[in-house]
């Protein structure tokens, strides 16, 4: 099968049970996407599929042949600098997923997608409450959430 990751084609001979996350980590050697739960519950494995954020542990690699896949190794975005400046991480294990998720989320906001806390009254889709709600699929056990919010908001303003 062929996977296109960060613009590079990888020809692979994989067990059909292989998840996209394991294909990236164990077969392509891109270990930036993390395995935190393998159940789609923590978000550490978040990557972008054709620009949309997904939990790569819940996707079989064989179903994504030809889809443009972006991992943290393929991202160069102001969110990363924001995380450094605001100390938006500690152990760093959820961080690639948080950053991929934030990049995908900012695109969703640019397209005007509402979240569960959007009331439809033309409010700021990047208020603190919006960012927190939209990022809630990505857990951080170090509790660096409060530092990620300004990091993401500043990146969005750039």
């Amino acid at each position, binding site marked *: 099968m062929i996977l296109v990751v960060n613009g590079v084609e990888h020809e692979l001979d994989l067990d059909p049970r*292989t998840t996209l996350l394991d294909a990236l980590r164990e077969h392509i050697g891109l270990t930036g996407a993390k395995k935190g739960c393998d159940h789609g*519950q923590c978000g550490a494995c978040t990557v972008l599929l054709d620009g949309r954020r997904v939990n790569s542990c819940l996707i079989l690699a064989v179903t994504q042949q030809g889809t443009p896949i972006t991992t*943290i190794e393929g991202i160069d975005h102001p969110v990363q600098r924001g995380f450094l400046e605001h100390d938006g991480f500690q152990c760093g294990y959820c961080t690639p997923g948080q950053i991929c998720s934030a990049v995908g989320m900012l695109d969703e906001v640019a397209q005007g997608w509402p979240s569960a806390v959007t009331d439809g009254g033309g409010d700021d889709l990047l208020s603190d409450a919006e960012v927190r709600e939209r990022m809630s699929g990505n857990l951080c056990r170090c*509790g660096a959430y409060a530092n990620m919010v300004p990091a993401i908001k500043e990146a969005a303003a750039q």
Partner: protein
Amino acid sequence: MTATARRAVGQPLQRVEGPDKVTGAAKYAAEYQVDGDLAYAWVVQSPVARGRLADVQVDPLLDVIAVLWHGNALPLEDSDDPELAVLQSDRISYRGQAVALVVARSLEAARRGAQELSLTIEKEPHDAVLRTDDPDLYTPDVVNPSFPSETSAGDVSVEAPVAVDVTYTTPALHNNPMEPHATTALWSGDDLILYDSNQHPAGVAATVGALFGLEPDQVHVVTEHVGGGFGSKGTARPNAVLAAMAAKVTGHPVKLALPRRALFSMVGHRTPTIQRVRLGATADGVLQVIDHEAYSQSSRLFEFAEQTAVATRHMYAAPNRRTGHRLARLDMPTPRWMRAPGEAPGMVALECAMDELAVALDMDPIELRVRNEPTVDPDSGKPFTSRHYVECLRQGAARFGWEDRDLRPRQRREGDWWIGTGVAGATYPTMAQPSTARVRDLGTQEFEVAIAAADLGTGARTILTQIAADELGVPVERVRLRIGDSTLPPASVAGGSSGSASWGWAVTGACRALRETGKSEAVFDSSELIAEQEKEGKHAFGAHFAEVRVDAVTGEVRVSRLFGMYACGRILNPRTARSQFLGGMVMGMGMALHEEGVLDPAMGDWVNHDLAEYHIPAHADVESVEAEWLDEQDTSLNPMGSKGIGEIGIVGSPAAILNAIWHATGVRVRDLPARLDKILPYL
């Protein structure tokens, strides 16, 4: 030794490994490319809480390299940690215990093989429930690490004019670092290399090496980056031993990353507690009685006696005091350390009871605490080297906006929300442990500083760089810090909030020796200085403040504001220190509101062993959380004047939230976590 002008210490230097972490370049234990034909292991966990594993049948058609169980496992040398005697016995001591290991050429095949294994188990009746009327309860000789189980002064049976007698219960809590415990093991001849996620590379090397009968220089543990630990990676865990055994038996390098579910049983957790606190005071709020009795549990394998009531010994003055611990040995997994073991649950009971006493006295809860501030450590009778608890309460109150707070509950309502505020004290012991550091002048105006420390996300790599730069008198860019490798000079565990003090002390000594001797290399071992040091009276203090809103219709609790004011000696890096404080408070919020291992007594296990059902705080739960600190000077501690800060944030913060829930609603939740079903019936 001469004092060196401080330039880097105290500055908010960004994490030195930060760029690697935000680009995915930082390597964790399961992410190394190793030479050889890598095999994958999957652990098989016991489906019963007690019994014996009589046989394992392997389908010959399974696509596996090996199946290891006690019937064919490599014999290990004895260990003082029975949990590490993996696959050595047919005895099953808890549900979730590792009983077999499947090794295969792919992760998929290993996992499938584990699912297909047929286990013949002789099941026995089990007991999984902690209760205060268990006839087998006993008083351990000591509680962790070596405190007396019981202390007393005066007579706690005296009648005080105003008294509270309350019981608080806390559930099993699970560390759940984001990186599950993982090991990649390979043998090079008789030498063992482990890429392992842990808090103590040198300790893991020594422990695992001893199990395989190896000399210390035959084991190399690499722990460059660690995806959190919170105590659960403090010592070698079964994954390291299993991976090493599998690699030995199969001849392949073996990667074993535990599935999230296994973290709930195999690597430790915080024991559930039942705590009775009796406080008695004069009518004007002077404590006469402090009595704190704590019940906790351990496994059949191992006596782990958590020091739940020990913090109470140091907090408040009273003529009549008693603390005690009772332990039950159950057919359950062994509890271990979890962030502020003892202090975190113990201070829930004490600081909520203090709030209840303040209510009974009709007194401001800060004033009650100030009124009972001891002049010396009540436990030892010796002075504290520094204690600024009252200042934390007073200045924290000013910063938080405590003035004009109505003492009565259920006075503030905005829309559907009841709003209230609460306060609780915080404390954590200040410790240092022997460590050795080496510094080399690389001759390029750069210096290599080496110590086998581990950075779990604490900022250790960063603050050690700052300390070394100042002691060498060079900018931080000139310091090349090497940690996370057991072959470096030995360092103590990243635990007990002691990393900065222990490793910083060794680094300081090595750098000063290099300057004083003018040589190109210097090594410093802090053991003698630490052995000579007075240990008593060294504690960090703080005060936590919470504002909550409770939905009058649903009982949902939201923490609108969480604030910590700390007195923790010299703050070495305000950027990373603030993050540690906030992280502790957020975990404290989880303890107050979300986290709970829900026990199924029939199965003898927690049923919610994944991150969908074991709730930890998510982005949406964390609104305003802030930390500030006093400029506390204490030269008696260590060369940096620092106190540990990794754990104090979770001490008292849960109590502040629970006290705020009472203030908002009048509902006193004494059984953690404060789920809405415990509040709603009383709204």
